[in-house]
């Protein structure tokens, strides 16, 4: 979908070449043709996954060959993007960039004609660590404060989160089922609304991802209570994990590039290699630091293990709360 001015000439050349010849020209090793690659994101433009994907689309063409477009398809709550990738030719040119929501959660709760086994991770960009935060003048400032307040008066604390069962809501569900605490869940239209409700004093707590609040936390304009992760977030080094506080609730959200499982193994391997190579390049590292994306690439094999573990754990949570049988 994107067209960068500096690459216009190359893009036109690529397109012309793609029109006349079907055979790839980029070395015999590449299983890709000269058609552009499409990284499809199931969200609107401008969000964290969009920005992260753009770091790759700006750096990877050099290593992979064809131009890379980031396409945002938020229709049908992201399912349209999933279906678009699923119905595309299995040649590795159409890939999904997503967190676990539209694939793992949707695969359980929505009426879809695919299963979790129809997908294979190509690589993992990063793991986002869901973080609970509030304003600095709020009486609750630590995990202990929160637990104490919730035990003293159950169901009194208002907790803002984006859409139900999303990546910044499920950790709360998991935490409540682990501790038996009760909070009022207030769904919002997204991170922006959650934050303005917290800063305006309309709700008590909220959940978001570290990158979006890191600079405010450092400046003392917001307080991060804790992260639902095994280890502390690099963006919020002073914020404890829930595990440190004695609650073993860990539910990070990965951001993976996912292909359909009928894409040939050598294509997936080629993509994994050139993506990893591109993200290790100095330009990509500089860009990743600049946009605070925290990219730590993980190869296809490890990503698959992580993917399957998430499928299992999300399934358990959803069964727990009675969303699925």
């Amino acid at each position: 979908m994107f067209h960068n001015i500096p690459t216009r000439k190359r893009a036109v050349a690529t397109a012309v070449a793609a029109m006349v010849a079907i055979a790839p020209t980029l070395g015999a090793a590449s299983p890709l043709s000269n058609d552009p690659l499409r990284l499809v994101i199931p969200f609107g433009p401008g969000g964290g996954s969009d920005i992260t994907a753009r770091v790759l689309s700006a750096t990877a063409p050099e290593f992979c060959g064809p131009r890379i477009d980031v396409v945002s398809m938020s229709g049908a709550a992201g399912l349209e993007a999933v279906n678009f990738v699923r119905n595309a030719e299995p040649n590795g040119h159409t890939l999904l960039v997503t967190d676990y929501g539209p694939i793992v959660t949707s695969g359980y709760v929505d009426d879809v004609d695919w299963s979790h086994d129809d997908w294979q991770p190509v690589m993992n960009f990063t793991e986002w660590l869901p973080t609970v935060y509030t304003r600095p003048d709020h009486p609750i400032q630590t995990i202990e404060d929160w637990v104490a307040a919730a035990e003293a008066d159950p169901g009194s604390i208002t907790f803002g989160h984006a859409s139900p069962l999303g990546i910044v809501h499920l950790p709360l569900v998991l935490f409540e089922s682990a501790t038996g605490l009760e909070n009022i869940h207030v769904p919002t239209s997204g991170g922006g609304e959650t934050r303005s409700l917290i800063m305006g004093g309309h709700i008590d707590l909220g959940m978001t991802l570290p990158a979006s609040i890191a600079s405010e936390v450092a400046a003392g304009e917001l307080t991060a209570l804790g992260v639902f992760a095994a280890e502390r977030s690099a963006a919020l080094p002073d914020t404890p994990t829930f595990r440190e506080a004695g609650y073993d609730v860990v539910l990070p959200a990965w951001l993976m590039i996912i292909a359909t499982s009928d894409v040939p193994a050598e294509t997936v391997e080629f993509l994994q290699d050139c993506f990893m190579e591109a993200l290790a390049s100095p330009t990509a590292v500089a860009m990743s630091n600049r946009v605070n994306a925290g990219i730590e690439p993980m190869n296809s094999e490890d990503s698959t293990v992580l993917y399957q573990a998430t499928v299992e754990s999300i399934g358990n949570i959803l069964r727990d709360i009675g969303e699925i049988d």
Partner: protein
Amino acid sequence: MLESFIPALYLAFSPEVILYVAIGVFMGVTLGAIPGLSGDMAIAILLPIVFFLEPAAALGLLTGIYKGGMFGGSISAISFGVPGTPGSAATAIDGYQAKLKGYPNKALMTALYSSVIGDTTSDFVLIFLALPLAIVALTFGPIEFFALYAFSLLLISALTKGKVAKGVAMAALGILLAMIGRDPMGGSLRLTFGIPELAGGLALIPVLVGIFAVSELIIQLSKAWMDRVTRIIDDTKQKADSLLGDYDASKDKLTFREFRATMKATWIGTTMGTLIGALPGAGSSLAAFISYGLAQRFSSNGKEFGKGSLEGVAAAEAGNSATSGSTLIPLFAFGIPGSATAALFGAAFILMGMTPGPRLIYDHTEVIYALFLILIYANLINLGLSQFLLPFYSKIAMIKSRILLPIVCVLAILGTFAAGNSVIDVWVLLFAGLLGVVLRVYNFPLAPLILGFIVAPGAERALRQSLLIGRGDWMHLLSSPIAIGLYTVAAIMILTFTLVLREKK
């Protein structure tokens, strides 16, 4: 402050940056004029450009596109009755009537001037009043938002004159259309009729372009078809032909007197647009409709609204464009993106390594000052370039309808697809067009439907959030002075309007 102002001046007024702003304005006006395509979409496509350009140049390009797109939507709204962007739907109401009455140029000029005035004012507010306004915006929680949405719905139901019942029915229908899809609060599916593709709900662009634009196109196409099959020319056709034949471009010039007469409406639009734009999540189409409604109420020629009133054009277009500066206020003050456009600008900042928020102006003073300067002078470029471009676009609008209509239809279909990359959106567009036609031929007003559709999701979310926070106590809705104020103003306005209307009768 001054020491960074001088380099910012050099930065903002370097020939390269000025050129990029001009290119952006040109792209924005052109893309905005195509139904379905908007400045937002062009910004989303060009976002990666910030990797390759200097920050000031990249921001200049994006700003130009945004401002050009704000006005561009009104070109097709006035020329064909087909709003090019969601914000220009209210402009189409009077703008297209003005064109049919033989003064398209006056309407276009009014739209351009009011757009630039609204936009510029809003930019100054952003620069000088960002923080105080942002603090006011933060006091808007669910309770206040519900009051605001209720206020706008009441205002709009009072907007339809004569056939109030039909207007109310349409508002209800709009609410129902907005309810389709996954319930944003509980997660269950509503009114999807078993179609999984409807789970995400109906998007604004296809519904709005379909209801307003495609239905208009269908009616015009049927007229073109009638011309083809019948040789007998009926009265209206003759009249329309003679109108075009007699169309005297020298008479169709906006006089200073007419311009001055639209100023009140422009300022109403500017004020409402700036205020509503600063609220996260309210949006430019709502601002345009509210401005239109208020201007009609306060105008001495309120009866002319809907019949080609230049005041109507001015109010709607000023209201729409005045959101453009103020929508960035929550982003600059707190790093909260209040609209799709603000989210895109936020992403552009992040891609440049600048974190949106209160620290932005201290950490990157030069670039931000340069952006402020660009925001202001981009309006002048928009004014100049659009005045230069308008004659060409008007010529395109004069191409015979039998040739032009299919092209506009195809553009609307492809543009809507490109806006969301969604096939469902195209089906929604076509069926919304069909619905719009049926409603039009049965004399149902379309504006309340769109308003219901725009307001319902926010109103529902705000009400249900309020009741969750207030633990189900309805009195909680009256626990805020702002909310009580809004309800009181709404009540007073409706009372006075009904009384004033009675007296006039």
